[in-house]
């Protein structure tokens, strides 16, 4: 008994000695790199309000898209650099906005003077030069891939005219003509060649307009597997219904192969450049769709927003302006009562992420930034 008292007294002293004055705990919210501005380029995934403040996700106060989350991590904010006037894109009169991304943005735009072209977005920001404390966040290519897939699938209707026209924007027309005339195999292969050329174009644009203009921290999201989206799953399902499961699987593999061709080339181009981090959005998105529960997703196949109608392509249309957090919470699916039901969904409409999907993109970017030693 005496001994026990002796022991516990010393134990208490030992603990006491150390706890005194130690403090600490909590969270250090200072990133490892000092970033004074986050500058964003890309498409609807990164557009925080060009179109009258309506964003390609669920609308609502406090909802943050991934560029806003990245900016917040560095203690800063972003707002849309462009505003859509109804016919064209003008500079946002609000000063200091550094998110140049526009919904519908593409790497390969037919009109180099249209800021829907991500190269022009980069050139516009790059004209003033970049500071050593700028972090550039660039996404792109999803809409380019969608355009290629759409043109390819439409070839049976228009004899390949749209496909040939698109391919010829980046590849020699003779090569395109020969490939399209050569049958299914060469037609499929030319898609890969186009995607490689697209990656080259993306790289050249980032090199000339960002890296050569002083950018020291550049985060590039590679091309996500758009075939995972509900919209393209429906397209693939219609292929399956018309031509069978094998044809569906072949088409999906073909499209994924094209996207991989882009990503492989993008990695190769940026390899060894310490200023650039390429975040593997492609793999992350594939994983999320394949293992939703692992990523905290309750649904990775159905859009959360209600279908509004049918487009000319026979696919459902959605209206982001009315797809608000309040509206979704008030209208859970049949048999569900939890007002937060939509918060675990991956997709808002057939092609775009929910706010949680944006958080997952932010988490992916955080990983790449941390590996670089920037976050």
């Amino acid at each position, binding site marked *: 008994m005496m001994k026990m008292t002796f022991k516990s007294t010393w134990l208490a002293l030992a603990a006491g000695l150390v706890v005194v004055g130690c403090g600490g*705990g909590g969270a250090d919210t200072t990133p490892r790199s000092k970033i004074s501005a986050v500058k964003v380029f890309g498409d609807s995934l990164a557009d925080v309000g060009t179109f009258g403040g309506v964003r390609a996700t669920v609308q609502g106060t406090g909802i943050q898209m991934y560029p806003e989350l990245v900016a917040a991590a560095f203690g800063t904010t972003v707002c849309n650099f462009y505003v859509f006037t109804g016919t064209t894109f003008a500079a946002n009169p609000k000063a200091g906005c550094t998110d140049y991304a526009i919904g519908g943005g593409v790497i390969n735009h037919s009109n180099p003077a249209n800021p829907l072209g991500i190269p022009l977005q980069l050139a516009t920001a790059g004209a003033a030069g970049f500071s050593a404390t700028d972090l550039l966040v660039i996404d792109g290519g999803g809409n380019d891939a969608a355009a290629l897939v759409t043109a390819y699938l439409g070839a049976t209707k228009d004899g390949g005219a749209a496909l040939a026209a698109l391919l010829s924007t980046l590849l020699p027309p003779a090569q395109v003509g020969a490939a399209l005339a050569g049958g299914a195999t060469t037609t499929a292969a030319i898609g890969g060649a186009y995607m490689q050329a697209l990656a080259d174009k993306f790289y050249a644009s980032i090199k000339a307009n960002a890296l050569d203009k002083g950018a020291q921290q550049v985060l590039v999201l590679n091309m996500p597997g758009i075939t995972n989206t509900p919209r393209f799953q429906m397209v693939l399902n219609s292929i399956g219904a018309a031509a069978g499961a094998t044809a569906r699987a072949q088409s999906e593999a073909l499209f994924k192969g094209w996207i991989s061709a882009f990503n492989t080339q993008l990695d190769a181009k940026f390899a060894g450049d310490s200023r650039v981090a390429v975040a593997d959005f492609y793999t992350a998105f594939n994983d999320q769709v394949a293992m939703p529960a*692992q990523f905290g997703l309750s649904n990775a196949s159905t859009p959360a927003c209600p279908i509004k109608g049918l487009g000319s392509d026979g696919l459902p249309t959605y209206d982001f302006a009315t797809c608000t957090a309040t509206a979704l919470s008030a209208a859970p699916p049949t048999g569900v009562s939890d007002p937060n039901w939509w918060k675990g969904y991956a997709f808002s409409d057939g092609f775009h992420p929910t706010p949680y999907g944006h958080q997952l993109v932010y988490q992916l970017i*955080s990983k790449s930034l941390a590996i670089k030693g920037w976050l």
Partner: protein
Amino acid sequence: MKLQAICLAALGLVAAAGAQAQSAGTIIGRLGATNINPKVESGDLSAPSLVHTTIDIKEASQLSGGLTYMVSDNIAIDLPIGLAFKHKVIGTGAIANVGKLADVKSLPITLLGQYRFGAANASLRPFVGAGAVYGRFFGARSTMALTGLTGGTPTTPTTMSMKNAFGAAGQVGLIANLGSRFSAEFSVLKVKLKTTGTLSTGQTIDARLDPVAVHVGVGYSY
């Protein structure tokens, strides 16, 4: 470093005329340094997470000391005393190379029974020990990298805690009696200890720490 002074004062408190060397009834106060090197076997962070998100916990060194009470000429009770160790928690597996996720402080509160070979005044006394460790973990301070990886921002940072845990310990060591009342001690302590880390975002991670503690110190017999 105020704490070091407190430690020294604590040792001084027990200063009293006593037996020579390490004979029965002697109390030996010891000052030195300890390196703790966890040999981490990490489980996977629970969902939501990247598949196979694991951690490693890095070694730490700290000023340390201890009190030994000689029950007999050969049997001792040893209570290491020290400042808290500060360990880096880093990402491995799916989050390899992201760097530091947190600092966590550990206080391995340890009580050992030892058998010291040889005579009380032998110049070299090898010893073996066994006992228990209560690993107290506190003061975990997460980094912005952890916050970002788990979807938080500076206004909603992710914090981490680690569960305190009991473990069993085994020890081997050697004491050199340096004459007068001084001795030098070297020991290696292996601890079997498991803990669970919990994030404020809800995920948990089990990790077997099984640290090896290497201590060198100079003792003074009272």
